């Protein structure tokens, strides 16, 4: 077993763009579910429209990257309005089904050959973020080492900006949730009718929440798209939504830092597990008859499923959560 490699990849994973992707997705879900109680099971869809809005604008329409980012955010707002219009008037579990279906529609349309000329089909869209890396204060191609961390100049730049976005969203969440606006949201989570009876337009607040959290998800998609210089439809499978939920629950919902902490731990564990299993398989600790190299790639998803269930059952309040104040009653 190459322990050095294992540790390096685990430590490095703390800051990589994939972690940022899931953290932002989870921050959005924190607004949706953590504070407002909206069961959005289609966060992957919001992340997808962010990423594709950017990529399609640049690649297909030839607009600048910065316009593309605005387009990605705009699409997320549009998607929230489109879904919220029917679904926010309905019972909570209907929203869950509508959002999960919408996210799948987006993925299927993006990967369909009928939209290939726009969305690139199965292989997605690549190399559209040059403008971003032109601004890089580090040297794009150089490798930088800091103790156990090792990143390329490109990685450093997207990580710096990506974590900047995460901090900004955390600040936004903090400011909003200490305000009377946040109080209305938390009250809606507890009991919609009570809030209605006090003269608040619950529907409008839910819509604002859906838009805000959706935009956060879209920013996650945008960061990953720029970081990878690529978008692929299957990045945005339903599984992605649930990795975000796993992160949110682990960190603690309705807490400003819950999704950030949870996102880091959840994704690092998810990725670290994969590295460890592959190392074990390479070192023949697990015999080939029990686990082939194809199978070893599957194991982490088995753990992902198990971890989601166990978390929900045994520690629904997560690390930072207070069961008295907010329990998911898992």
């Amino acid at each position, binding site marked *: 077993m190459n322990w050095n490699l294992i540790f390096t990849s685990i430590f490095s994973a703390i800051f990589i763009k994939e972690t940022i992707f899931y953290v932002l997705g989870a921050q959005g879900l924190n607004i949706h*579910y953590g504070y407002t109680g909206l*069961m959005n*099971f289609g966060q992957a869809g919001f992340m997808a429209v962010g990423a594709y809005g950017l990529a399609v604008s640049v690649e297909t329409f030839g607009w600048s990257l910065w316009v593309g980012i605005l387009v990605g955010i705009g699409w997320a707002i549009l998607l929230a309005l489109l*879904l919220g*219009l*029917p*679904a926010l008037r*309905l019972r*909570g*579990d*209907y929203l*869950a*089904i*509508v959002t*999960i*279906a*919408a996210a*799948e*529609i987006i993925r*299927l*349309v993006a*990967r*369909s*050959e*009928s939209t290939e000329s726009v969305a690139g089909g199965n292989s997605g869209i690549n190399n559209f973020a040059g403008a971003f890396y032109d601004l890089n204060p580090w040297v794009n191609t150089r490798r930088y080492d800091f103790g156990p961390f090792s990143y390329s100049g490109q990685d450093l730049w997207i990580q710096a900006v990506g974590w900047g976005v995460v901090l900004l969203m955390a600040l936004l969440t903090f400011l909003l949730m200490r305000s009377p606006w946040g109080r209305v949201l938390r009250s809606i989570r507890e009991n919609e009718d009570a809030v209605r009876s006090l003269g608040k337009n619950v529907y409008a607040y839910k819509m604002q929440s859906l838009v805000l959290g959706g935009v956060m998800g879209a920013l996650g998609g945008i960061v990953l798209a720029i970081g990878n210089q690529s978008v692929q439809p299957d990045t945005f499978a*339903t*599984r992605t939504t*649930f990795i975000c*939920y796993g992160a949110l*629950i682990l960190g603690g919902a309705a807490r400003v830092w819950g999704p950030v902490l949870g996102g880091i731990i959840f994704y690092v564990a998810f990725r670290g597990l994969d590295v460890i299993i592959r190392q074990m398989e390479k070192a023949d600790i697990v015999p080939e008859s029990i686990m082939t190299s*194809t*199978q070893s790639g*599957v*194991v982490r*998803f*088995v753990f*992902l*499923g*198990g*971890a*989601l*269930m166990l978390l*929900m*059952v045994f520690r*629904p309040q997560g690390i930072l959560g207070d069961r008295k104040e907010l329990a*998911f*009653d*898992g």
Partner: protein
Amino acid sequence: MALALALCTAFVLQPGVMSSMVGAQEPTVDEPAVTTGSPTETDGPAITGVLVNRDDDDSPVGGVEIVVSDSAGEEVGTVVSDDDGAYFLELPAEGEYTAQLIVDSLPDGVTLTDEERTSLTFVVRPGQQKPLLFPFGVDTRNSTGSIDRVLPLTIDGIRLGLLLAMTAIGLSLIYGTTRITNFAHGEMVTFGALAAWYFNQIMNIPLLIAGVLAFLLSGLAGAGLEKGLWKPLRQRGSSLFGLMVVSFGLSILAQHLFLYFFGSRTRPYSDYALQPGGVQIGSATIPPKTFAVIIISLVVLGLVGLFLSRARFGKAMRAVADNGPLASASGIDTDRVVLWVWIGGSALAGFGGVLYSTTQQVSFQQGQTLLLLMFAGITLGGLGTAYGAAVGCFVLGLFIQLSTLVVPTSIKNVGAMAVLILVLMFKPEGLFGRRERVG
């Protein structure tokens, strides 16, 4: 009739072309220009078929050279089609081969439908006579008269609709009785299909019996889940959200366990994969098993319907799904009803998976692709109902298949999910929702 046979076998034996998309089966419409020759005396693996030219009223194409090599690249034989367009080449053993069509050998005026498709890689099983798909002539798939495609698509839509109904009744009743939006229900479908596959291919049990065993085993699995997971969670007072997340975790867990042990390849059952006979309808030939699946589904759904409408316990199930507190207040043992809803619903889902896999082959993720269609179907019919769910699913299955007349096959499921969203927008209680239930 020979054409019919060839078409269905050609399709069924081509694992590579099976997409994992739901209901991607469009047997005869897809590959109309290839036929096999008549069966020969030999028992060994072989390739066989008849080459015809679609441009010229399916006239035979003779003198075409096909070179076959094994997976190591060693040439194992060459065959030239005769004046009837037929070819036959015995292969040394089962395994993977590549067939190369020599374009220079094509007669003047004959072109491949897909000019790139000169080489095919395929797997031959012991004793299998493998037809190869080398279509000639202009691709007329999407330009054939829609009328010709309507009937076969309708029949396949009926099959898909009935199977969705069978698998989704449990999902709807589970929702009705426990309020769980069970995202792991699709995995029960896969579980049934996989269980039947192990019985059938590993233990050599005929598929009919294997299907019944899978039905029972799925029911048992449903009971285990209810006893070991859902009931304890409900008793703790878990929130709807908690239950949903747990069900999704379970779905990921189960799906990847299937992937781990079964692999990502789609695999057929040993029976009925290659089936003689078939009925020419419109532009397509429907294999007998499609009709068999439709009839079996109708019988099963009929029995379920009888049970739910006549049997005391069946009525109790509907009552609990309709209104738990009221049913409970009138002395119905809700816990027992819920247990049997899990058992029955899971058994039906598993059995539906078996029937589904007779035409689509077994895949570790077939349930997942079906799940959202089931949700769309039962939402259309009315969440929590039994009959409404069945009708909704049936309509949806038909809709999905017929929609391919106008939309590309790759996004036909998008239409189904759009229906889901539209229904919720305009008639959230579904077509047969609770509003008409109290009388």
